[in-house]
């Protein structure tokens, strides 16, 4: 059996179901690895080892008697700390909510447990999923396992860092302006922002009601599809939940991509925000590889990244202000500097700004929908640079907005980021695939084709 910490979700679940792997051994191996590596990575805010071992023991007993809860039976998972886990505080990585005990699981956590997953603990984030990376919060920021001097991306920083480092094979992240896909890009894993409304947000602390998404983060495309199947589904108590039925996301994984039409949004990284040359080269390589695999690749034009970014910022910061205004008024000193600055920005936006952004948003959705009448999937950049050094404030500030993720928070289309290669400096560079609403299966199909060609699922950081 391969090293337990690099086992995929699917392989671990199959081995447990076949009684070839003990959930107790798997959980213990991961907790030992967390003990060894997390002091350097800071992926966790809180490890819940005792509860995880108790759950693993229960999972083992059930597996031995042939009773499997679901497709994730006995497989550990990490949870971003803006998502409720019953009996643990949801701190949002902030002093403001340091003692905010959750009385119930978020719906996505409840579904993961229902599928048999074992919760290992709560993971680092940017403060309230926006203020980071910061060194003035009660917990330090997570670091990148490919090079711990570098940023792991955010805001689902601990989720990206921990999955890439083999601390757990899957994690939950959230994505309002790219916060699942940024750490997936920086850490060289697979991160999906599903279609808006596909995964319930109930029990997740909001950043921006109309832009928030919960998404799976894994080391392989197949695991991502498996995890999405566990957490997707209509929630009548989430006002943003879609009525669409749950799909079979892994159905087309190994079908190949012959005949699929791929739209390459080159202007994002060539004109709007010119990418680092290594990122540009990697994107060209992905496009050529997909052509070799039988896809038809053509250029597609969408609204500019600058305008998508402005629409995202006005909506995000206005909605976030409506949540944080009272706390920022009464206890601004309980926020970190970055969180305070970014969350107060909404106080200076007008109702007119918000309505302008919301009206333009509908037009942008129509423009992306028009593109999907010509192609089946979009290919574009995710991050325009490899991860920068985490303590280089100026470089963090410069590179953070250099990305092409916010367009699909604005439009709500499913978007997946994954490794496109490694830079000369040994850091991941990334690619993004985007699909039609509720067509995550085709996004996975294309991502899997690239993964098979490039072997990205076999590349792990040198951390031991």
């Amino acid at each position, binding site marked *: 059996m391969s090293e337990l910490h690099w086992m995929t979700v699917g392989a671990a679940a199959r081995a447990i179901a076949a009684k070839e792997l003990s959930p107790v051994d798997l959980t213990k191996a991961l907790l030992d690895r967390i003990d060894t590596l997390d002091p350097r990575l800071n992926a966790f805010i809180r490890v819940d080892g005792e509860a995880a071992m108790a759950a693993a023991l229960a999972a083992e007993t059930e597996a031995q008697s042939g009773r499997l809860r679901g497709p994730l039976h006995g497989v550990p998972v990490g949870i971003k700390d803006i998502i409720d886990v019953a009996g643990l505080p949801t701190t949002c990585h902030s002093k403001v909510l340091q003692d905010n005990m959750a009385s119930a699981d978020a719906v996505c956590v409840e579904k993961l447990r229902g599928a048999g997953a074992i919760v290992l603990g709560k993971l680092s984030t940017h403060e309230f999923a926006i203020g980071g990376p910061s060194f003035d919060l009660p917990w330090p920021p997570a670091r990148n396992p490919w090079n711990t001097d570098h940023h792991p991306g955010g805001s689902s920083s601990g989720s990206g860092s921990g999955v890439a480092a083999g601390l757990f094979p899957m994690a939950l992240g959230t994505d309002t302006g790219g916060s699942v896909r940024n750490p997936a890009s920086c850490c060289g894993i697979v991160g999906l922002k599903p279609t808006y409304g596909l995964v319930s947000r109930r029990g997740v602390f909001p950043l921006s009601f109309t832009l928030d998404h919960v998404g799976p983060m894994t080391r392989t495309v197949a695991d991502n599809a498996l995890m999405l199947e566990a957490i997707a589904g209509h929630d009548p108590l989430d006002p943003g939940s879609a009525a669409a039925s749950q799909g079979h996301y892994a159905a087309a994984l190994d079908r190949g991509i012959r005949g699929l039409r791929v739209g390459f949004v080159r202007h994002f990284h060539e004109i709007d925000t010119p990418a680092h040359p290594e990122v540009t080269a990697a994107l060209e390589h992905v496009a050529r590889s997909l052509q070799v695999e039988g896809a038809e690749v053509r250029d597609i034009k969408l609204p500019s990244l600058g305008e998508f970014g402005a629409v995202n910022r006005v909506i995000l910061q206005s909605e976030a202000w409506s949540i944080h205004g009272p706390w920022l*008024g009464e206890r601004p000193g309980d926020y970190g500097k970055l969180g305070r600055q970014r969350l107060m*920005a909404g*106080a200076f936006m007008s109702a007119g700004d918000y309505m302008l*952004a*919301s009206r333009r948003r509908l037009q942008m959705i129509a423009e992306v929908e028009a593109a999907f009448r010509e192609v089946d999937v979009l290919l574009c950049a995710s991050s325009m640079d490899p991860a920068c050094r985490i303590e280089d404030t100026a470089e963090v500030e410069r590179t953070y907005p250099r990305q092409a993720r916010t367009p699909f928070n604005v439009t709500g289309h499913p978007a997946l980021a994954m490794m496109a290669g490694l830079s000369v400096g040994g850091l991941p560079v990334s690619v993004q695939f985007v699909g039609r609403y509720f067509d995550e299966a085709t996004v996975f199909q294309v991502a899997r084709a690239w993964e098979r060609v490039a072997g990205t699922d076999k590349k792990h950081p040198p951390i031991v």
Partner: protein
Amino acid sequence: MDKETIEVLAKRAGLAKALTDFPEDVRVAATQAADVAQKIRRPADPKAEPWPPMKAGTTL
């Protein structure tokens, strides 16, 4: 946005304490917000609707 305007808007938004304790952060926040809407193209059609649309009775 000039200093006086920032102060008036901050106080109106309930940020008097932040203005006293973290004036630089308030200024940065106001600057972030100041010109962002200028980058958005105004819909030519005055009837252009916002997203999300009202959908009475479909949820909750």
